[in-house]
C-alpha cells in the first residue's frame, strides 16, 4: 500500500456513523422474486448434461471395456503347448531324403506333360482320333453313327494314346 494514501484508506467517516447502509429506494413489490424466473425464461435456461462430462464418461466407459478385454485375454489365454501339433522332425527328414533320392536316381523320368498332351480342338478331330483307334473308314460313317459313337458305351473303346 502506498504510504501517502494510507490516511485515505483509513478515512474517518464518523459523520456516517449511525446511518444505516440499507437501500431505501422504492422497488415494485415482488420485483426480486420475479426477476430470476423472468430471466430464466428469457435465457431459456435448463439443467442438462454437460457435454464435457459426457465425453469424459464415454472415455471412462471405453477404457473400462478395453481394460476388461485385455485382462480377459491374459486370464483366458489358451496354452500354446496344448494346441500345437507335435513336430516329428525325424519323420520329416526321412520323407525329404526319400524324395531327394527319387529325384536324383535314374528311375526318375521327367515327363513333359504339356508336350505329350494331344489337344482336342474340335469334335471332328476327336472323331478322327477315335476312328484311327477303331480302324473304321470315316467315309462310311453317317451322322447317326457319330451319334451312336458318342452315345455308346465309352468303356468299350480301347484308348491307346
Amino acid at each position: 500500500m502506498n504510504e501517502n494514501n494510507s490516511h485515505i484508506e483509513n478515512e474517518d467517516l464518523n459523520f456516517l456513523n449511525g446511518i444505516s447502509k440499507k437501500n431505501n429506494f422504492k422497488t415494485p413489490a415482488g420485483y426480486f422474486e420475479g426477476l430470476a424466473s423472468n430471466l430464466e425464461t428469457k435465457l431459456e435456461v435448463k439443467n442438462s448434461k454437460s457435454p464435457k462430462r459426457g465425453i469424459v464418461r464415454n472415455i471412462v466407459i471405453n477404457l473400462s471395456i478395453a481394460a476388461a478385454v485385455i485382462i480377459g485375454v491374459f486370464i483366458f489365454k489358451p496354452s500354446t503347448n496344448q494346441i500345437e501339433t507335435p513336430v516329428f522332425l525325424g519323420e520329416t527328414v526321412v520323407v525329404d531324403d526319400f524324395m531327394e533320392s527319387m529325384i536324383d536316381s535314374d528311375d526318375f523320368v521327367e515327363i513333359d506333360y504339356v508336350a505329350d498332351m494331344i489337344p482336342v480342338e474340335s469334335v471332328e478331330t476327336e472323331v478322327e482320333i477315335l476312328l484311327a483307334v477303331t480302324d473304321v473308314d470315316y467315309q462310311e460313317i453317317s451322322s447317326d453313327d457319330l451319334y451312336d459313337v458318342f452315345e455308346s458305351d465309352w468303356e468299350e473303346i480301347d484308348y491307346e494314346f
Partner: protein
Amino acid sequence: MRIENDSKILSLYQDGRHQDALKLLMESYQERLYWHIRRILLCHDDTDDVLQNTIIKIWKGLENFKGDAKLYTWMFRIASNETFTFLEKNKKQKLNIDISENFEFKDPSHPEDLSGDEIQLKLEQAIATLPEKQRMVFHLKYFEEMKYSDISSVLGTSVGALKANYHLAAKKIEEFLKSN
C-alpha cells in the same frame, strides 16, 4: 461466502446444471447488482433494463469465463460498463430525478425510524450530487465494502486514483450533510 458461492456457481454451470447455476447467481447477486446500478441511475425502470442486460451478458460470458479474475468483480465490471453505456446513450436526456420521490420510508409510524430514514435520504441525496464514477467508487467502498484492489478490477482504475476519489467523495458528502 462470496467466493464459496462463486465457485459453486461456476461448478454448477460447468456440470451443465444451468438452471441451478442461474438460480444461485441470482440469489447471490441480483440485489447487489441492482443497487449498484440503481445508485447511479436512480430510476427503477432504467435500472431494471440495465440489470437485465447485465445478467444476460454475464450469463452469455460465463461459458468463456477463464477464472483469471474473481467472478464477482467480473460481474460488477459488466454492470458498471452497462451502466456507463446507458448513461452515454441517454446523455441528452438529463436525468432529473427527485430522490425523495423514489425513497421509501420504511415505518413512518415510528419517529425514531423516520429520523433514521430522513438521515438516510439526506445521504442518498448527497451521494447523488457526486459525479457518476465517484458515486460508483463510494458505493462499492462504503456499501459493498469492497477492497480497493477489487474496485480497481471492477472500474479499471488504479488503487491510488480510487483512494483519491473516495476521499473526495467522502468530503463532499460530509459538506452536503453539514449544510443540509
